[in-house]
């Protein structure tokens, strides 16, 4: 147990598709469970990452909360991995980067069709949006990148087994996809 790698995972401005793909390793998750344990992750109830070996993050950075979570991961994970297209280049959420934030918010909360009681949410519990969605590597240092939308289960498996077996992870041709 003491030698198990601790893994934390989270989704920032993502769709959890990368997490779903991770779970597509199917029965190999049993083998994996012998080798790793999960820290903060949607599949555990742990709220904060601490003392992890690997942090897997899907999604880009679109708001202040994303920044805090990303920093928590960076601080608590020896190896931080940007997982999937959104984490690597902002992905689909970053397509709002071409519309000024003010226009986005006005459309969504003030002027859009079907808006009732128009007001821009201002509760202090709510994270504020950044003017542009950013990839992870522009906010913290990232150690590895797993491209794909989502990266296939094979990518997760290869990457983790390489790490577990002490190899520098290598993604062969068929495993590198941006779609």
């Amino acid at each position: 147990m003491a030698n198990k790698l601790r893994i934390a995972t989270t989704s920032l401005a993502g769709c959890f598709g990368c997490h779903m793909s991770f779970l597509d390793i199917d029965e190999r998750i049993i083998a994996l469970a012998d080798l790793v344990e999960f820290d903060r992750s949607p599949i555990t109830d742990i709220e904060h990452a601490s003392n992890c070996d690997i942090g897997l993050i899907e999604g880009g950075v679109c708001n202040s909360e994303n920044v805090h979570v990303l920093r928590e991961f960076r601080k608590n994970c020896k190896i931080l991995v940007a997982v999937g297209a959104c984490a690597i280049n902002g992905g689909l959420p970053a397509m709002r980067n071409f519309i000024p934030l003010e226009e986005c918010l006005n459309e969504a909360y003030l002027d859009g069709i079907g808006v009732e009681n128009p007001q821009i949410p201002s509760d202090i519990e709510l994270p504020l949006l950044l003017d542009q969605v950013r990839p992870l590597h522009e906010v913290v240092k990232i150690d590895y990148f797993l491209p794909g939308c989502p990266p296939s289960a094979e990518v997760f498996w290869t990457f983790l087994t390489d790490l577990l077996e002490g190899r520098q992870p290598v993604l062969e041709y068929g495993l590198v996809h941006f779609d």
Partner: protein
Amino acid sequence: MSNTLTIDGNTIPFTDGQTIMQAATATGVYIPHLCHHPEFTPHGSCKLCTVKVNGRICSACTFPAMAGQNVLSNTQELTADRKKITQMLFVEGNHFCPSCEKTGNCQLQAVAYHLNMLDDHYPLFYPQRAVDASHHEVLIDHNRCIFCTLCVRASQQTDGKNVFAISGRGINKHLIVNADSGLLKDTDLAASDRAAHICPTGAILIKHTAYQVPIGQRLYDHQQIDQVSLAQEQTPHGE
């Protein structure tokens, strides 16, 4: 010994007037490239075909093959530099592959795969670029243009037209079309033009064909660009 040169230690023949790229392609040696296409006048702008000729850095697509040249292409150093240059092309534009119908058939993406590019490395520019969907059969998505000028050359050299041009300077370069309105629909482009089919990225697309081949079964999904490129370019087009 005359009319041979070496690439990565292998001796290959060439004929007078050939570029290093042409000599390499003819003998089955792939040198990564995006702006080069054997049908058109070499351009030399993408710089992916950077090779070292007798220690000096040159573009293989424009540099003449000469007897006794010692060409280095597939080295760790050049591959690393090519990857950086490819990353530059990615951050300069807006390349959201998952939402691009060219994915899997895209040469920019395929070169990136070939170079094992896993990330963009540099900060992204997120430039503000438009889509021109005015033409009923052909679409321009400027977000994906890499200024290779293949469409410009194909329109001039094959189609005998002048539909496309590159305008602007430096990082503000952009593709324009030859119409007063600035819209593709007002040009004399036909969907059957060579220029409409030559784009190495998803910047110029034929409408209504997007997902005829599902993602996962596309050109580069199972074949590397080196094999595809050599298969297509080794015999001169049209012969």
